[in-house]
């Protein structure tokens, strides 16, 4: 009996521990999560937590001082570059370990290791796009350059110095919740992180597959109307009238282009497509004013990159001072360098070019093994890459990707949306080519003048970016920099034949001919994801451009003089809706007031009296969005539905411009599904009626105000899994095509203003906080400031000013 009880209770104890030590259904392992000396309670950071101290770390060469200010921004003072980037890696890991681990795993197509089987399709897309292949090519280029290799190596050692010293109690909370462990860093992961940015910014800027579908229904002339290359209202980055040099390369249109691209053969619809394509609202603004436009006489540079807003933020603010550099700005955790910022001599910022640098080619394989493909009249061997995806709790799944000389075959019979016949489509993407974008930032961090800035950006290939620049010596400039194929007109808009090199890119636009301006007469420059140039640029430059923000910024800056820092801060927060300014007269002209009910007329009145500002409490903005959305649907849906499986929607800008011109537009106005011929008046009136139903529902719920209708949120990286870690329903207005470009999930991920006076006056804010730990008061402490459109002062700390720091962390060699 005694034995029995002893064994019984011991077994019960052991059994309970066993059960609590692993996940129970959807619940994380409760024992290690709840235990107050190991679990999540340990991540509840004391409000008086001391971030300072002294540490000895293997791998450091000398002593490094890290002065942390009261916002937890580190000011790093190192004696050599190796130590500088070692400590950058260490700090990124210290404050953002889960983020960098998750993001680089996801970039490589390993999200399923954390998220389980719901991430398999996402992972497959990353693998099939060749993200690892792209990162390997980039890393080979990085490691050819001794300085870059030294930086990457040091950064990796720094991340690992932190990971290796971690205890279970210190493990970031998300690992405890998911029941997973961090993986050590390596240089390829930094390369993967930069490729993730390349994918987010340059892989969603084409619509080749759906345009190919559209082409099977619409005539070439209709395609030009639906998807025009240059908008009437465009205000390009390079001011109209700026002369362009004669092209250094003139791509030759293949004789067969018209019959192959627009002929009646090969018109089967494509059944594939990315399910996780990057969001086209990944946009940005930047602008720069010369001394002639400012009240101080010193240039002012501004930037606000619009990305998915997340907690922790994609950005981490810091100052890096080494033997030959002293730079402040935001870094991308997972990569060395400051990406957007300023130093003692210059400031720079970036926006996305939105250029199309990714094309698809049809491949003919020998058979389902896809080991050989037909090219130049013979069978060529494809390179086969076996992809193993480890799925949390479910074992490993495998996928086979064939690589051709064009690139990986992203879509084939084994990877489509439907069970029907899938085509073999190889991807040609500049992101796959060897390049060392980090080198640009290494040099920009150290650049002292225009020439050094221009030299720095020569290393930048993908994603194409608009690098805005200002120096204390008074120069301002902008370059749209990147590796862009020199295309013949229409090349790359649709899937192209891949049986020989006829339809290949014939070369690249020489870097010197990339759109650029230095010190324009008018004293300012801006970019906001619009088409970089007007129709006089000698190259065909397709992309997914956004026109209205550029129009607003251009008009505002044009009208401003003696500009102050406060003026440009106000512009960052500007809610003016330029597109609505053009759309409103059209809607008011065609709406049939007599046909409206009392409620509909009330909405119409609110819309008519609207101040055209997308402010948080605006009802007019909500009415505008709902009305214009349903009008677009009324105009296009019947036409687009003829395309199987789907065609791209024309841009709002396109709809507006055609409505403004009206007459030639009529064939699209009529609803093909009805016998009678609809008029624009009917469409405009009926779409207000349709919108009113939605508006009434929201009004009843008290959600007619724009911010309540839109519900902008900053989610945790694990999104719906952890809603209580998010900041939801923020009282902010704006929208994707408004300068203050806050949508439901995207927006200004960093607002920066640099006034290049002798002592540099700089301000910045991002919607997050320096510490990725949800148990820290520094997790989301910038969000309220960001919501109010306010900024933190950015202090480029000098040696001897250490007393302004809150904590001092001293790192020494072991």
């Amino acid at each position, binding site marked *: 009996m005694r034995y029995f009880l002893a064994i019984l209770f011991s077994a019960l104890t052991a059994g309970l521990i066993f059960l609590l030590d692993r996940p129970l259904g959807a*619940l994380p392992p409760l024992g290690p999560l709840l235990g*107050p000396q190991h679990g999540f309670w340990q991540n*509840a950071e004391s409000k008086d937590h001391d971030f300072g101290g002294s540490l000895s770390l293997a791998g450091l060469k000398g002593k490094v001082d890290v002065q942390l200010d009261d916002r937890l921004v580190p000011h790093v003072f190192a004696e050599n570059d190796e130590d500088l980037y070692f400590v950058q890696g260490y700090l990124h890991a210290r404050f953002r370990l889960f983020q960098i681990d998750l993001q680089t795993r996801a970039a490589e197509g390993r999200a399923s290791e954390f998220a389980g089987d719901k991430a398999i399709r996402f992972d497959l897309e990353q693998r099939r796009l060749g993200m690892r292949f792209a990162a390997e090519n980039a890393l080979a280029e990085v490691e050819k350059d001794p300085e870059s290799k030294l930086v990457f190596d040091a950064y990796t050692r720094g991340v690992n110095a932190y990971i290796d010293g971690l205890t279970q109690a210190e493990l970031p909370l998300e690992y405890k919740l998911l029941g997973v462990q961090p993986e050590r860093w390596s240089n390829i992961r930094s390369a993967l992180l930069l490729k993730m940015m390349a994918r987010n910014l340059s892989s969603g800027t084409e619509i080749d597959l759906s345009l190919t579908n559209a082409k099977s229904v619409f005539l070439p002339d209709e395609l030009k109307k639906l998807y025009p290359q240059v908008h009437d209202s465009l205000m390009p980055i390079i001011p109209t009238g700026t002369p362009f040099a004669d092209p250094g390369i003139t791509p030759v249109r293949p004789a067969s282009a018209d019959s192959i691209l627009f002929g009646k053969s090969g018109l089967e619809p494509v059944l594939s497509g990315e399910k996780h394509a990057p969001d086209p609202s990944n946009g940005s603004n930047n602008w720069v004013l010369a001394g002639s436009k400012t009240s101080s006489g010193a240039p002012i540079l501004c930037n606000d990159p619009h990305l998915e807003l997340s907690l922790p933020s994609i950005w981490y603010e810091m100052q890096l001072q080494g033997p030959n550099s002293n730079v402040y700005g935001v870094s991308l955790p997972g990569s060395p360098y400051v990406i957007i910022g300023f130093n003692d001599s210059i400031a720079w910022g970036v926006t996305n070019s939105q250029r199309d640098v990714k094309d698809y080619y049809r491949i003919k394989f020998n058979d389902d093994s896809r080991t050989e493909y037909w090219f130049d009249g013979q069978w060529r061997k494809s390179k086969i890459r076996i992809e193993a995806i480890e799925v949390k709790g479910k074992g490993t799944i495998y996928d086979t990707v064939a690589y051709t000389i064009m690139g990986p075959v992203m879509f084939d019979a084994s990877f489509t949306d439907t069970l029907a016949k899938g085509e073999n489509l190889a991807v040609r993407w500049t992101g796959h080519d060897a390049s060392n974008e980090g080198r640009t930032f290494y040099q920009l961090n150290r650049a002292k003048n225009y020439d050094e800035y221009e030299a720095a950006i020569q290393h930048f290939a993908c994603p194409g970016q608009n690098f805005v620049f200002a120096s204390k010596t008074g120069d301002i400039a902008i370059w749209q920099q990147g590796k862009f194929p020199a295309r013949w007109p229409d090349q790359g808009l649709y899937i192209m034949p891949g049986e020989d090199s006829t339809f290949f890119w014939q070369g690249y636009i020489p870097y010197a001919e990339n759109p650029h301006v230095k010190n324009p007469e008018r004293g300012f420059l801006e970019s906001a994801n619009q088409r970089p140039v007007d129709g006089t640029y000698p190259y065909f430059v397709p992309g997914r451009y956004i026109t209205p923000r550029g129009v607003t910024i251009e008009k505002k800056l044009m009208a401003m003089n003696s500009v102050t820092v406060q003026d440009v801060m106000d512009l960052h927060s500007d809610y003016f809706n330029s597109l609505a300014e053009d759309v409103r007269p059209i809607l008011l002209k065609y709406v049939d007031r007599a046909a409206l009910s009392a409620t509909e007329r009330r909405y119409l009145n609110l819309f008519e009296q609207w101040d055209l500002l997308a402010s948080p409490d605006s009802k007019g903005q909500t009415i505008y969005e709902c009305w214009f959305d349903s009008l677009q649907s009324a105009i296009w849906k019947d036409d687009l539905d003829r395309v199987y499986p789907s065609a791209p929607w024309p841009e709002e800008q396109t709809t507006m411009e055609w409505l403004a011109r009206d007459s030639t537009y009529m064939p699209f106005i009529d609803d093909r599904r009805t016998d009678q011929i609809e008029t624009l008046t009917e469409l405009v009136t009926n779409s207000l009626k349709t919108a009113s139903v939605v508006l009434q529902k929201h009004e009843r719920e008290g959600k007619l105000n724009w911010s309540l209708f839109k519900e902008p949120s900053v989610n945790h990286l694990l999104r719906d899994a952890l809603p209580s870690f998010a900041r939801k329903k923020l009282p902010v207005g704006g929208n994707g095509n408004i300068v203050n470009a806050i949508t439901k999930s995207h927006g200004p991920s960093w607002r920066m203003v640099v006034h290049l006076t002798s002592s540099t006056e700089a301000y910045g804010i991002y919607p997050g906080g320096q510490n990725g730990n*949800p*148990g820290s008061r520094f997790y989301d402490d910038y969000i309220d400031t960001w919501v109010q459109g306010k900024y933190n002062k950015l202090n480029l700390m000098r040696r001897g000013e250490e007393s302004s720091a809150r904590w001092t962390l001293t790192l020494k060699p072991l």
Partner: protein
Amino acid sequence: MKSLIAVLSTAILSFVAGIFLPWWTVAFAAGLVALLMPQKSFISFLCGFGGVFMLWLGLTIWIDRSNDGLLSARMALVLPVGGNVVFLHLLTAFVGGLIGGLAALSGKHLRSIFSSVAP
């Protein structure tokens, strides 16, 4: 008095062991105390339960106060306690207490084996 000493020893031993060893080390602390301090079965259970329960509750309250309740508010919506922070503290302490109690019972009965085989 003996029970009080058992409770306190369980708590102290659990805390010290927890600094170096995994979370389930409380089982050894509670078991060891019951092995060395013979009591009736139910009393052993209560001492083991109480020692760990009080330690864990004390720790969570202390941690939560110095954190201004930032994280517990978020976690109370992640774990099945319906957003109630008090329940989150009690759930934590209960899990620890249950392991402590069962481990103490095991220790108590193991002692009976040793004492019966001892000459």
